[in-house]
């Protein structure tokens, strides 16, 4: 356990005032800001969560980026370009939010490339047809919205504010994805078959996006006490199912779960159990595309090294010239 960065004064009560102030701020549902004192555990958890979130946006560009060059109409191509561009933008917001906690973007990128930090399990699944692009919009962005809307009230200010901007764009993407599927369902039988196949392949991985079940999610309780997270994994998963079932009916597709049915008593849908072993394998690096996604990110980073070096060298030369000019 690394203790060098922890804040013993706050933790051992030598500066209980700071801790009390922090606790009171959280209790009043007010925001913690970058200059405020915060427990080291809170800082670390946030850096981990925000970085993971940023990495997900960046890796998430890949499965959809696969289809930019094959988009079947110019309108869909424009939509995909805009979406991938938004994702890069979300990555930037989130890295900035992480940097307010003292993290460094270059270092976080290294951690991602070395596999020391994770990204969302969902992006380790392949996009095999154009319907996957629509299903990613509908399920994956839909699940992201369920996760992220409550984060707009997260206790850490910069994170919460980033989420407000991101959620607006995500819900736009979700509608566009659903609209693509609607168009395809009204199209040819081959198009409808593509949609059904994509729904079947993405449903369970989408449910796994919310993380392990509550009784196997050790960090959740602390994150909820700190109001970093506002709802448990299972609550959010339930919310996603309840939101998605009527949309599937309207679209005319069947979700691949024989146990899925409305439960009048609970006022929610009952549904089957995701394959948690599969989730664990994917998180540990053994999903269908883990190696490919990481390799692609690593290659882009390594092949871009000379470009970044050139930009730094040029900036240094410009600064030196400016200084020389100022002295003269």
């Amino acid at each position, binding site marked *: 356990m690394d203790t060098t960065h922890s804040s013993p004064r706050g933790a051992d009560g030598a500066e209980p005032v700071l801790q009390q102030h922090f606790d009171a701020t959280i209790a009043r549902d007010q925001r913690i800001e970058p200059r405020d004192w915060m427990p080291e555990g809170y800082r670390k958890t946030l850096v981990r969560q925000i970085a993971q979130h940023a990495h997900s946006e960046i890796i998430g*560009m890949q499965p959809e980026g696969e289809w930019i060059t094959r988009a079947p109409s110019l309108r869909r191509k424009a939509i995909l370009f805009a979406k*991938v*561009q938004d994702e890069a933008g979300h990555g*930037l917001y989130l*890295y900035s939010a992480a940097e307010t906690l003292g993290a460094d973007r270059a270092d976080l990128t290294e951690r991602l490339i070395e596999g020391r930090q994770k990204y969302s399990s969902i992006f380790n699944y392949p996009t095999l047809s154009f319907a996957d692009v629509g299903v990613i919009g509908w399920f994956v962005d839909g699940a992201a919205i369920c996760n992220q809307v409550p984060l707009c009230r997260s206790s850490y200010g910069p994170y919460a504010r980033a989420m407000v901007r991101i959620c607006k764009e995500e819900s736009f993407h979700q509608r566009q994805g659903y609209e693509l599927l609607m168009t395809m369902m009204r*199209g*040819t039988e081959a198009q409808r078959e593509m949609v059904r196949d994509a729904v079947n392949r993405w449903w369970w991985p989408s449910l796994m996006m919310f993380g392990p079940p509550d009784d196997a999610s050790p960090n959740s309780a602390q994150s909820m006490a700190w109001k970093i997270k506002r709802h448990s994994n299972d609550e959010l998963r339930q919310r996603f199912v309840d939101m998605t079932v009527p949309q599937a009916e309207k679209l005319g597709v069947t979700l691949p779960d024989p146990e899925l049915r409305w439960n009048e008593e609970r006022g929610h849908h009952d549904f089957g159990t995701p394959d948690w072993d599969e989730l664990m394998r994917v998180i540990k690096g053994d999903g269908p595309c883990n190696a490919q996604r990481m390799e692609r990110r690593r290659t882009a*980073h390594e092949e871009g090294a000379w470009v970044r070096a050139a930009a730094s060298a*040029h900036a240094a030369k410009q600064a030196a010239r400016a200084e020389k000019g100022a002295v003269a």
Partner: protein
Amino acid sequence: MVLSHRLGEWAGHAPVLEEELALANIALDLLGQARVLLSMVGDEDELAYLREERAFRNLQLVEQPNGDFAHTIARQLYFSAHQYLLYGELASGDGPFAPLAGKAVKETAYHRDHAEQWTLRLGDGTDESRARMQRAVDALWRHTGEMFQPVEGLDVDWPGLEAAWLERIGEVLRRATLTVPEGPRTGAWAAGAGRQGLHTESFGRMLAEMQHLHRSHPGATW
């Protein structure tokens, strides 16, 4: 449209996150311009997805493969400087392209700025980046003459455009500590070849990828 497609191949491969954004942004502008132009002639998707290689009239310059980042930037530099001048001239006239050109010239000013800034960074950066940038401007030079072959129906002062382009490019390359290439600016066998539907080899493969899904489902709506 063709250049926009080439830029799309960069998605997820750019050297920094900011460039993922910039390249997608430029591609999106170019695609928007292409859609307006194609719609002026007919159905945009029919024109994009159902024409064969020989029926495409794009410049050979824009179909050139991305290569390394310097190659992509050199292609952007040459093309955006040309587009900026051409749209500027069209926007000031009252021809059918004036409204499109008026909007596009603003977007293109940003594209040109982006390409020029990177030309300076790479040219006046490290030894390696200068060597790569020089190789790129040299390699693409032979496709630049084509941009100034008169196009039927466009009332443009082509020699004037070419002179202004050469001046601008020369100035940027010199500021970037690069040498202005001296070789011929058109291929020996076909000046203006792209405009006549004569393309380079990689273009067919690019179209195969671009058109595959659309062609596999004739008549489908997306």
